[in-house]
């Protein structure tokens, strides 16, 4: 009986072998949809932006041309430089805070929560807000930080201050706070992932060799967590560099970021100017990512 079945299977396999495609062709076919979609909606649009950034424009439309004025105007204005500096400042501050908070949250989950069920539950508690609307999460700070908001109300009630603190909302403070709120999860997840992969025997060994808790942390855990920190950094830095909505809503229009500048140019139909800005921003972001990728091989960390 088994002999018959296996014979039949052999015959089938031989019959099909003639029709079977080579593995490389199968892989290509499987990868084609991804390549087509990213080609059409990522590569082509970026190419288009690069081309348009050299075009000329007037108040109504743009004309194909090859002029450098868009770049000269962008890079020659010191408003641009201030805006870039401001965006980089947000990126640096938010990066430092999310790295600090993200590391300790991930460290607590990975090393102090004892059962894996509890680990999963607490991890989900951290992840769920990421899957809800960013705008709603941003707006939700308004009743908390506003002039008559919760924080000011509580402080006045407690007699600590007599007039509301004005800089809580519509300020750089509010922008950074909201960004930390939105983006810390992007730091927690990759760091948690690398921490979970650290062989616990290494920590036992360090302890047996007489290392203190702080020494284990700085000499064993943190070096091994670096790839996770690098991936988290890529996420946070690129998200902050691309942000316009948080800056617009939380600063109340008082601060600027590169993406917000682009958005304003777009609403004035100055597409070539926005495109030149986009190219500069893209080059800057890709250079930053390339720098970080020198430290970490993403494919190994998956």
């Amino acid at each position, binding site marked *: 009986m088994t002999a018959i079945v*296996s014979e039949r299977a052999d015959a089938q396999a031989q019959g099909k072998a003639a029709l079977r495609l080579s593995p*490389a062709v*199968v*892989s*290509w076919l*499987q*990868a084609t949809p*991804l390549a087509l*979609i*990213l080609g*059409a*909606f*990522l590569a*082509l*649009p*970026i190419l*288009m932006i690069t081309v348009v950034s050299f075009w000329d424009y007037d108040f109504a439309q743009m004309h194909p041309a090859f002029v450098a004025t868009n770049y000269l105007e962008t890079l020659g204005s010191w408003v641009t430089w201030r805006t870039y500096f401001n965006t980089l400042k947000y990126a640096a501050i938010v990066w430092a805070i999310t790295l600090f908070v993200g590391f*300790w*949250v991930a460290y*607590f*989950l990975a090393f*102090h929560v*004892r059962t894996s069920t509890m680990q999963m539950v*607490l991890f989900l*508690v*951290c992840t769920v*807000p990421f*899957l*809800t*609307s960013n*705008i*709603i999460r941003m*707006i*939700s*700070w308004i*009743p*908390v930080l*506003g002039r008559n*908001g*919760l924080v000011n*109300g509580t402080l006045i009630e407690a007699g600590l201050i007599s007039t509301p603190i004005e800089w809580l909302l519509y300020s750089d403070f509010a922008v950074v706070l909201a960004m930390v709120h939105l983006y810390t999860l992007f730091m927690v997840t990759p760091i948690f992932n690398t921490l979970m992969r650290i062989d616990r025997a290494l920590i036992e060994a360090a302890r047996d060799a007489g290392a203190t*808790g702080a020494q284990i942390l700085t000499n064993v855990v943190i070096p091994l967590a670096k790839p996770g920190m690098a991936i988290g950094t*890529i996420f946070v830095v690129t998200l902050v560099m*691309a942000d*316009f*909505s948080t800056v617009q*809503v939380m600063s109340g229009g008082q601060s600027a970021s590169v*993406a917000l500048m*682009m*958005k304003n140019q*777009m609403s004035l139909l100055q*597409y070539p100017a*926005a*495109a030149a800005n*986009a190219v500069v921003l*893209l080059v800057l*972001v*890709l250079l930053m990512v390339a720098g970080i990728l020198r430290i970490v091989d993403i*494919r190994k960390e*998956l």
Partner: protein
Amino acid sequence: MNREARTREFYVLAIFFALFVVFLYGPLSAIVILSFQGPNGGLTFPLNGVSLHWFGNLFEKQAVGDFGGSFRRSMTLGIMVMAVTVLVSLLAGLAFRRRFLGATPLFYLAVASLVVPSIIISLGIGVLFQQLGLDPAWYSSAFGAHLTWTLPFGVLIMLAVFNRFSPAYEEAARDLGASSWQTFAHVVLPMIAPSLIGVGLFGFTLSYDEFARTLMTAGTFNTLPLEIYGMTTNVTTPVLYALGTVTTVFSLAVIGGALGAIAMLNRSRARG
């Protein structure tokens, strides 16, 4: 390590973690509470009575633009993005299991898709459609724009899944005489089904909440996040919070449903 007494480090970090959770959920709960504001209440505490007034307000068209229509569009778009993300990520994940010419550039293209600022993609697709003489719409240009955000997540998740997937199962199936389709359908697919649900969840929720990429690509009709974004500047009543509460509850229901499905699949696999 398990039976050791809790150290002081544990308590310090536990408090830190608890504060982090309060930080994550605190503001959100503030708008949920404020959405039940009485009809004469404002945008801040205290509550001026408790009512469902602002939820009722949502369904009056003139009050908040086109809430129903934008919700339907976001919902349809989310489902479209979810379906394509799951299918394309799965295929790409399978492709990357073998070496093939162009695998590395394609991988880096996917990573680039993740790091390119969303507003640049929005602008690029908007200008591209304009130059091609096509009208941007939520089901064409915005659909593509969303895929550039959901696909890299899907592909990276599938790569991680297949990195941990032992080929021994497939070899066993083949030794038992299964065809490659049978091996895929009866062995591989059931094992990776929970991850596929996860990819689908990402695809749907990221699209449902996305708006930077939709900004220049939605065309005439707004999606829900664009509608909400517009409301932040010109709506000064708690109807904004009511809308926030409704969409958040909807998101939570979707997440809950997906997690439930994953748990069920894992349980039936553990049993069988």
